C-alpha cells in the first residue's frame, strides 16, 4: 500500500515548512466538516474513515503526485458519487467548462 510508509527510508530531506492555505484548500476542508457533521439531519453524509480509505485507494502514482487537499477532494468526489449525491460525469463536464471560460478570460 503506497500510503503505509512508516519506517521506510525516503530519499532526501522531508520538507517541513508550512505554506499558506489556498482558498480552495480551505473550502475542501470546510466541505469535509459539513459532510461529516453528526448533527446533520439524517446523520453525516460520510465519515473520515471513508475519506481515508478513498485516499488510500488512489493509484500509487496519484498518491505520490497529488497534494494533501487534492487527495481529499478526489476521495470526497468518489464517495459522494457512490452515495448518489453528485454526478461525477457532470462534475467533470463543469470543471472542463470552467477551464475553458478561464482560458478565454485570461488568454
Amino acid at each position, binding site marked *: *500500500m503506497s500510503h*503505509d510508509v*512508516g*519506517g521506510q527510508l525516503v530519499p532526501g530531506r522531508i520538507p517541513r515548512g508550512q505554506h499558506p492555505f489556498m482558498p480552495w484548500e480551505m473550502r475542501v476542508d470546510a466541505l469535509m466538516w459539513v459532510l461529516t457533521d453528526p448533527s446533520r439531519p439524517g*446523520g453525516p453524509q460520510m*465519515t473520515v*474513515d*471513508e475519506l*481515508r*480509505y478513498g485516499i488510500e485507494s488512489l493509484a500509487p502514482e496519484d498518491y505520490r503526485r497529488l497534494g494533501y487537499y487534492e487527495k481529499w477532494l478526489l476521495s470526497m468526489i468518489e464517495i459522494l458519487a457512490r452515495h448518489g449525491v453528485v454526478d461525477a460525469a457532470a462534475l467533470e463536464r463543469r470543471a472542463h467548462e470552467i477551464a475553458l471560460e478561464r482560458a478565454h478570460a485570461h488568454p
Partner: protein
Amino acid sequence: MSARFAPGDSVRVAHRGVAGHVRTPQYIRGRCGVVEQVHGAFRNPEHLAYGIRNGPAVELYRVRFPLQDVWPSADSSLDSLDVDLYEHWLEPVGA
C-alpha cells in the same frame, strides 16, 4: 463489552496482510509489546471506512514497543514507541 487485555499484559500484533482499510501499520505487525492503557471501546474504523456505522464497538489499546525491536538500526535502546491498536489485532503472549 469488556476489555480482553489489561495494562501490563504482553501482546503480539497479528502478522496479517489485509486488503482495504486498516489502522495497524505494516511495521508493527508481528511485534510484541506491553499494554500501557485501555482507551475504551470505539466503532471499528475497518467498518466505518465502508460506510458501516452500526457495527459493534471494539476495544482500543495503547501498546508500547521497544524501539530497538521495531527498527534495530535505530540505535536507541532507551526509546520506546506507542501505537494505538484495536483488540482484534492483538494476541496474548504467554506469561
